[in-house]
């Protein structure tokens, strides 16, 4: 059963491919004849700063922004960033987190258990994957961890979209010379098991 409206937050560090992932998902939703709106940020919010983008699809969408405590799915491309999305999290929220840490200059790296403890105050549905590590080892390209996680999320039914639509999304958004590796990363994520 498809929900009426599906709310996604993708966050991480500038340069991790949030804008690309947004467009893959938006195009997939368009292919499924759904209404889709998203909200992204440019400029100062990049340059290694935190980036948080919103995407909503469904039958009828008004706001491009996800409401407080109303995210169905939060994809955090960096571990520490996951706690910054808690404003959108509640018991229904599924977290999928890339187990990579981008240190903040001058700040100590927090304990993973500490972050997890915070997240669990909001939702029990949390999965953490070493996506960057896997993509670095397998493809020598960490940036593929985004599509890897999309593949994983789809297989685990965290995303109410069809595989064909996401394929079309990747085909549409990713420049041709990078498509092969992106499809491979997506499939690797799709069939990944702990």
């Amino acid at each position, binding site marked *: 059963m498809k929900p009426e409206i599906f709310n996604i937050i993708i966050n991480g560090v500038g340069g991790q*491919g949030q804008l690309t992932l*947004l467009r893959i998902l938006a195009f997939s939703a368009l292919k499924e004849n759904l209404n889709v709106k998203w909200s992204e940020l*440019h*400029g100062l919010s990049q340059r*290694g*700063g935190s980036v948080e983008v919103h995407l909503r699809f469904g039958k009828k969408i008004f706001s491009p922004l996800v409401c*407080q405590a109303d995210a169905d799915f939060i994809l955090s491309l960096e571990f520490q*960033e996951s706690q910054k999305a808690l404003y959108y999290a509640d018991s229904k929220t599924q977290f999928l987190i890339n187990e990579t840490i981008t240190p903040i200059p001058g700040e100590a790296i927090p304990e993973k258990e500490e972050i997890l403890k915070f997240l669990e105050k909001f939702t029990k549905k949390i999965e953490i994957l070493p996506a960057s590590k896997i993509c670095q080892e397998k493809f020598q390209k960490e940036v593929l961890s985004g599509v890897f996680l999309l593949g994983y999320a789809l297989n685990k039914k965290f995303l109410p979209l069809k595989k064909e639509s996401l394929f079309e999304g990747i085909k549409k958004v990713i420049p041709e010379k990078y498509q092969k590796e992106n499809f491979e990363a997506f499939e690797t994520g799709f069939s990944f098991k702990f």
Partner: protein
Amino acid sequence: MVEHPPYKRGVGGSIPPGRTFFMKEILFSKKGEKIIALGNEAVCRGALEADVDFVSTYPGTPASEIGNVFFALKEEIKKIKPSFHFEFSTNEKVATEAAAGAAFSGLKSLVAMKNFGLNVASDFVHTLMYTGVEGAMVMLVADDPSCWSSAQSEQNSRFYLQSAHIPALEPSDVQEFKEFTKFAFLLSQKYKIPVMIHSVTRASHQGGILKCDQINLKDKKGFFKRDPKRFSTMSPRVLEMKKQLFEKIEKIKKEAENSSLNKTFKGKSKNLAIITSGISFSLVQEALSRLKINLPILKLGFVYPLPEKKILQFLKGIKKVLVVEELEPYLEKEILALAQKARLKVEIIGKGEAIEGARLWTGEKGKRKAILPQIGELKPEYIEFAISKILKKKLLFNYEEHLAKVQKIETITRPPILCPGCPYWYVVNALKKIVNVNEVIFGGEIGCYMLFSHKAINLQDYLYCMGSSIGVAHGISKSSSQKVICFTGDSSFFHASIPALINTVFNESNPLIIILENQTTAMTGHQPHPGTKGIKILDIVKACGIKHVKEIDQTQNQKEFEETIKEFLEKNEPAVIIAKGECALLKKKKQ
């Protein structure tokens, strides 16, 4: 000493800021085709469907994509329409003047800028409104509530509409961005007056589905018809012009009264109604659909001039009206005045008191009330909250408790910082090595080097607009015995720094000015500027009368760079170092 930080820029920094996807679709999509696009990209499509002849801009987020799209498509457009012209102008004032010149010559022009750009252009714009144009001219101005991409202020550009009498439209969604742009060209052509599309970050940078119409580009040469009464403002003619401007605004107001851009949605309640516009309308719809209630809404497409009769008609018999808009109350004040003049008994609710609103919504103090904040952007849940409170309805969710739970968690802050390999790191390291940083004042400016404020760098004692670091440095130098080192970028240098530089010579002060010539407009996405086309900053600096000037690639000749800082700090006259290290991202892009 600051070394390059142990951080990796995301995963490779493969996407420079401001990259626009699906560029060609904006030009080549056929009538009826549906594409996904940003609000700003829809403006470009709308301008193309209106057969725009001339586009000028100075890059500034959240308006940058307009320039990026036309820059990328320029050659393709010229294949169909050889007369088409696009330019990144030296600043927003010049861009506006260029677009006006094109429109004086009978062409259709578009100029795009962020909020602060309008400040730069406003000197020209106030007079431009008096004369109007001959062809058509549309201005896109994008504000940035919450300062997502702005360091200077949370400027509400709507107040310029009244000050300069600029007819303005506010689109809500991607489709409207295209339709309103096309309509703005028609309106401008009909009344021979520039028309503004007023936007905000969340409107311009919202993505959605865009249904395209026909593009029919025609080659066109402009012609400036001489007429001493038309574009030359001298007293007493200027006062006649003001009268003519008022007459135009009066006619446009009549048009606004009957325009389908102002939409009334009949609701079921007489107790509460909503007046809103732009992106706020989408948020209102979201809030109402979540609350499953149906209230009357007046959605204003025209925010200047306002359709006063339509507003009064809407208010009749309504007990309370909530005005939903971002930042300082603009519509609310207008509606209050209208209602009072018409002696309506309606209660108008909007922002309330400024400070109180700010505290309430950041969770700083007490319980939230049925008012909206003047600081920061709106969120749909704020509106939902306000409506629930006014109607004394039970809240859908305990937002306050949830917020308190979120705020209890001390979360990380990750301020942006210079990229690894950025040539500015060499400047930072040299200064930290050579200069007693506690005894010198450091003047910042708008560009990547405003990241010198990062606590790991800490070389920024003041920050204002482009061109201001030298101007302020001069004032400090003249008033104190402190030494000032101030920074300006290359694009900023051409934008607004030259008059301030000349002033240091003319009025004899002694700051050390470091021009960071990274050979691009990096922060907004690597747009070209005059320096990238061979206009030499060194020649200009010399021509301004600066005696102590050196051009050094700080990444290659660190020793010379350090020695020069030492030497120039001793001078009792203004001195300039041009640090020529190229932007690291651009270097990578070229490889």
